[in-house]
Every structure is written in structure tokens, then in C-alpha cells.
């Protein structure tokens, strides 16, 4: 049977803004504010500030959409729309500094982002020229050593917490990992300095491995946390399947649990690396700075990229501009390295992650 003609009023409908309405309102608000700002700028002879115009336009839109929706759709829908637009506004606000930062770094960093920058150190360089090879090598070595210290400790601890840990030791470790997450990076640097200057009884101690130790303090909790999460994600069914085949626990962990979660663990480790690779303060204290190459982690000062950026900015010679150019190029290089690491992490996650489902 074919009931009620569909032209009769449907009791389930309410007033509803057409789909295009929010977009038109948003565009309208932007245009209005741009015009207003344009007039103000013309009248007061100041610069036309597009960022402020768009920002205030978005705020105007937030207000307008609420009012219009209130009138057409009622209070509840209006509140829903207001929140929707506020949430989108939050996103735009976060984007503004990102865009500004990236463009600044690109504009200032590209002039010295050249071959010389990646093939030379600063040894015997005064003024123009030179490069950051020594800093890049130092960063790689220090971070590598920090990774070699942190990953085994962090991963094994995570395994302990997920697979073995019960009782007070596990609780204490969980708690301390929490505490460790909160260690300020400068404190890690101070500790490494205090520790090594005491045991080597050298008040001016500076060497690469000290930096690695400081970075490890920052890295370990990140590795523990992310690995713990990943290990927890491994379904218990897989462990049980393995136990039910008569496989001992340690082999189950090694051959089932870790392979299943390896993608997540590697991603976590890579992200932990990118978290510490940009650290400046602890390295300034314990790894020091130098203009020359140093491949030896165990003695002599070792340059790192963040410290390079900082010292180029903070202690320029007479030719300030070429120091600043190097600082920005170093900043760009640092961002590129970290971004590449992030991409690698994503790629690893894609490649290794077990193909679940169909």
C-alpha cells in the first residue's frame, strides 16, 4: 500500500538552513571585514592587515551563524552550529603561526641552503661561507647514541609493564616514567653535566656522549609510553593463540607480540627521536660547541644542529647577516630532518603494519 502523498507536510522536518548558507555567510563576513580594514588602512595611512581582517571576519561569522541558525533552526541547532564554527576557527588560529613560521624559515633559510652548507664545517671560517656539516654529523651521532641507549631500556621496560609487571615494582616504574616525562630538558642537561663533571672530576666537561645521556633521559619515557600503548594494542587473542600452541611466554613476546606491534613501536621511536633531535639547552650545557668536525663521541666538544642555529644567531661576528643566514639555513635543515623522520615513521607504519582484515 502506498500511503500518504509525499506532498503533505512531513511532521519530522524542521526549519533548516540550506547547505550553502554557512559558506556564503563566511565569505560575506570576510569581504565585509576586508572592506572595513581597507577603509581604515586608507584613512590612517597604515598597512592593510589581511591576517587580522580574516581573523575578525571569522569571528563575525561565528556570531552571525549562531544568530541566523537561532532564528531559522532553533536554539539547539544554533548551539551546534556555533560550536562547529568555533571548532573550525580554533583550527584556523592554530594554522596562522604555522604558516608564518614555515614561510619565514623558508624565505630566510633558502639563501644559504646550498651544497657548501652541507659539505663544510665552520672551521677556520670567519664571516661568509662555511657550513653545518660538523653540526649535522654531531646531531646524528649524538641522537644515534641516545637512541641506542633509550630504545632497549624503553622497549624492555614497556614489555615489563605490559607482559610481566604486577604489584609494587610495576606501579613504581609507571609512576617514575610519569615523573620522567615531566623532567624539563634543561634539568636533564644539568644532571648530565653534574654527573659527568663529578665522576670525571672535570668542571668544564663537554663531550658528545654526555649529550646523548641527557637526551636519553628525555627520550626513554616517550619510548616507554608509546611502546606500552602499542604492546597493549596487540589483541590478547594472539597471545592466547600462541600459548595454546605450547609456545613459552618469552618466545610469544619475541615472535608474536613484538612483530605484531613493530610498526607502532618504530613509529613511536621515530617520533621520540624527532622530539629530542631539536633539543638545544641540554646540549649547550653538556656537549658544548665547536667549529670543527668531531666524530668522537667520547671526548672533545661536539656541535649539534640546534646549538649551531643558536650560536650562529647569538654570537655573530662583524658580518652579522651571514651568521643569521646560516642560522636560518640551519633551522630549515633541522625542520627538514625532523619532517623526513616523521614521514619515515609514517612509511614504516604503513609497510610493517600487519595486514588485518580483508
Amino acid at each position, binding site marked *: 500500500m502506498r500511503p500518504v502523498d509525499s506532498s503533505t507536510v512531513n511532521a519530522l522536518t524542521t526549519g533548516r538552513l540550506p547547505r550553502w548558507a554557512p559558506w556564503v555567510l563566511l565569505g560575506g563576513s570576510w569581504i565585509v571585514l576586508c572592506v572595513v580594514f581597507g577603509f581604515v588602512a586608507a584613512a590612517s595611512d597604515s598597512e592593510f592587515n589581511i591576517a587580522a581582517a580574516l581573523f575578525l571576519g571569522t569571528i563575525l561569522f561565528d556570531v552571525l551563524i549562531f544568530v541566523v541558525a537561532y532564528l531559522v533552526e532553533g536554539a539547539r541547532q544554533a548551539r551546534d552550529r556555533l560550536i562547529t564554527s568555533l571548532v573550525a576557527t580554533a583550527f584556523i588560529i592554530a594554522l596562522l603561526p604555522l604558516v608564518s613560521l614555515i614561510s619565514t624559515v623558508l624565505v630566510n633559510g633558502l639563501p644559504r641552503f646550498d651544497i657548501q652548507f652541507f659539505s663544510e664545517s665552520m672551521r677556520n671560517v670567519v664571516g661568509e661561507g662555511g657550513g653545518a656539516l660538523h653540526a649535522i654529523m654531531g646531531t646524528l651521532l649524538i641522537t644515534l647514541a641516545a637512541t641506542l641507549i633509550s630504545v632497549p631500556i624503553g622497549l624492555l621496560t614497556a614489555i615489563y609493564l605490559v607482559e610481566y609487571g604486577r604489584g609494587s615494582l610495576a606501579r613504581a616504574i609507571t609512576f617514575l616514567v610519569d615523573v620522567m616525562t615531566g623532567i624539563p630538558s634543561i634539568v636533564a642537561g644539568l644532571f648530565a653535566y653534574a654527573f659527568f663533571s663529578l665522576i670525571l672530576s672535570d*668542571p668544564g666537561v663537554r663531550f658528545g656522549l654526555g649529550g646523548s645521556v641527557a637526551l636519553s633521559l628525555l627520550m626513554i619515557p616517550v619510548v616507554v609510553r608509546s611502546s606500552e600503548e602499542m604492546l597493549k594494542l596487540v589483541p590478547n587473542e594472539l597471545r592466547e593463540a600462541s600459548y595454546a600452541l605450547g609456545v613459552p611466554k618469552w618466545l610469544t613476546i619475541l615472535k608474536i607480540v613484538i612483530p605484531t606491534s613493530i610498526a607502532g613501536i618504530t613509529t613511536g621511536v621515530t617520533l621520540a627521536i624527532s622530539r629530542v633531535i631539536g633539543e638545544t639547552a641540554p646540549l649547550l650545557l653538556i656537549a658544548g660547541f665547536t667549529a670543527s668536525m668531531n666524530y668522537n663521541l667520547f671526548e672533545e*666538544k661536539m656541535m649539534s644542529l640546534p646549538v649551531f642555529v643558536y650560536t650562529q644567531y647569538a654570537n655573530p661576528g662583524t658580518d652579522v647577516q651571514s651568521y643569521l643566514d646560516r642560522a636560518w639555513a640551519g633551522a630549515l635543515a633541522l625542520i627538514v630532518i625532523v619532517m623526513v623522520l616523521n614521514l619515515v615513521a609514517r612509511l614504516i607504519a604503513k609497510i610493517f603494519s600487519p595486514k588485518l582484515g580483508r
Partner: protein
Amino acid sequence: SNEGGAPADSESTLSGTLDGAGASSQDSAQQAWVAAFQIENPDVTINYEPSGSGAGREAFIAGGVSFAGTDSALSDEEIAGEFGSCVADTGYVQVPAYISPIAVIFNVEGVEELNVDATVLAGIFKGTITTWDDAAIVALNEGVTLPSAPITAVHRSDDSGTTKNFSDYLGKVAPDVWDAEATDTFPYPDAKGEAAQGTSGVVSAVTDGTNTIGYADASKAGDLGVAKLKVGDEFVSYSPEAAAAVVDGSPAVEGRDATDLAIKLDRNTTDPTHYPLVLVSYIIACQEYTDAEVGPLVHDYVAYLTSEAGQAEAASSAGAAPLSSELSAKVATAIESIK
């Protein structure tokens, strides 16, 4: 690459590693000296750590480094003690190596030239003079229209020899206003002024801010306006010659050996060819080293950096004022005692 790689024609027989530490004011000059010296002597590596004058002296006394750079000469107690790297009961050498005028830089709308004297400077940086059109400033600047804007006085937020010399100058010349002792730390930390990190921080704060004034190593002044300083009855602008002149004209610290050329700077000079707002940084070394291989290295390096060539290098790459020939000769004699 720029690492290692001896030029084939080098005749140098020197080799080894030389460690120094101390004043950060010398840092850019040291970088230039080290670079030039290492190019001449490819088997030599010199590390100069700009860890601060105090730390440098401390490290030298403890024997951690073979030479130190310092903005303040060794004190009498320090001389009385032992020096770790030196053979016991042998003397030390202390020579001026780096003279740098300190510029008073400003960035005030519509003002190209500015005259100041020590009293006004002290008032501005202590926070008792707060606007540009203050009568005290106007009095020194006839014919200049100063805005009625607040003054932002920028000082160093980190410890620095520049601050110490700036403070020393104000304390000597305008003791009524500037009643603080000269230290590396800016003495009025709760003044309304602005603090910025490092010379570059001060320069960029002055450049990017509005109606600002600050003090910085003259070589970093760049395009900023530089104030003239009242000396005697005239207003002088800084110049390497005027800076060197005040050093030359100042008496030696009394009661020191012939190898200690510590200078008691005459801040109160009234000679208009002098520029008394200047920083003098010394090199300290042993006369005889317990490690015999170090002696020749130190000797050659310090000789180089105080030589005409070394001073010219410092002038071009760090904006330093070269030692006068008179002073140079005394320094050369003192250095001969290093073995």
C-alpha cells in the same frame, strides 16, 4: 672541504692542540685568530671556549686550560696563588690583546644624531630618566626635536664583560647616579629597562623596537644610530683610534711585574681624542709550562694575535681597535718570556 688539509707550502713545524677559555667578548676575534693561525700552522688545533672571564681565569688557575682570556685583570689574591699549568715559582704573563669600543646605539623616530653624557646615560639605564624629551637630554641636544615618547633602555640579560665595562664607566664618571659596583651582571635588575640576550639580542631589540637605546660592542652597531659621548667639553663618537688612545693614555696597575701589563683605564679622561667607554680584554699565560710542548705553541699564538697582522685581523673581523705601536712593543717584550 675546509677541515684539515695542510697547504703544501706551509713551513710551520708547530703541532699540537692548545686549549684556552675565557671572555666571550674576545670570541669573534679569537675565531678569526684561530682560523688564521691554523691555516698557517695546519697541524695545530686551537680551542677557545667563550665560557666567560671568571670561568676562564678559574680554569687557568686550576690548570684546565693553557691560556685564558679575561675582561678583568687578575686580582691581587689570584696573583698570590699558584697557576696549575705553570712550573712552580715561575711567573705569568698578562697582556692586553683586544680593545673594543662600546657603542651606545639608539633607534628613535625622527632622531638621527644624539648626544649623551655619563649622567644622562646613567639616568636612562637606571630608570630615572624615562622619556626622550626629558630636560636633561634636551639640554645636550640643541636643535634636535626629541619625541615625548617613553624610553626603552635595553641592557644585557646574560652576564657579560660589556656590561661590566659599561657599568664601570658610569660608576666612575657619574657616581652620584650610578651607585652600583661594576659586575658582569647588569646591576639594576628590577629597573624598568628591557633585557636582551647577548650582543645580538640587544642589537635586534634596539633595531626592532621603537624609541630604544642600548649598549653593544661597537662592531655590531650596524646601521643603527650611535650616540656621541661627552668627553671633556666635546661630544666624541667612538672610533678605534680614540679607543686605543684612551688605553695608551691610561696608567698601569701598580705593583705588578714587568710581564703583567694590566691597565687601570682612565674613564674620567677629558681629552676629546679619547673614547673612554671601552673594553680591554687580556690574555693570560704562563712563562714556563709544565708540559714543555705547550710553551712554544702559546708563545707563537699570543705573539701572532698581538702582532700587527693579528690586530688587523681582529679589526676587520671583530671590529676591534688595534693596539697602538707603543703598547704593541711592550706586549712583544712581555711575551718573549713565555717558554
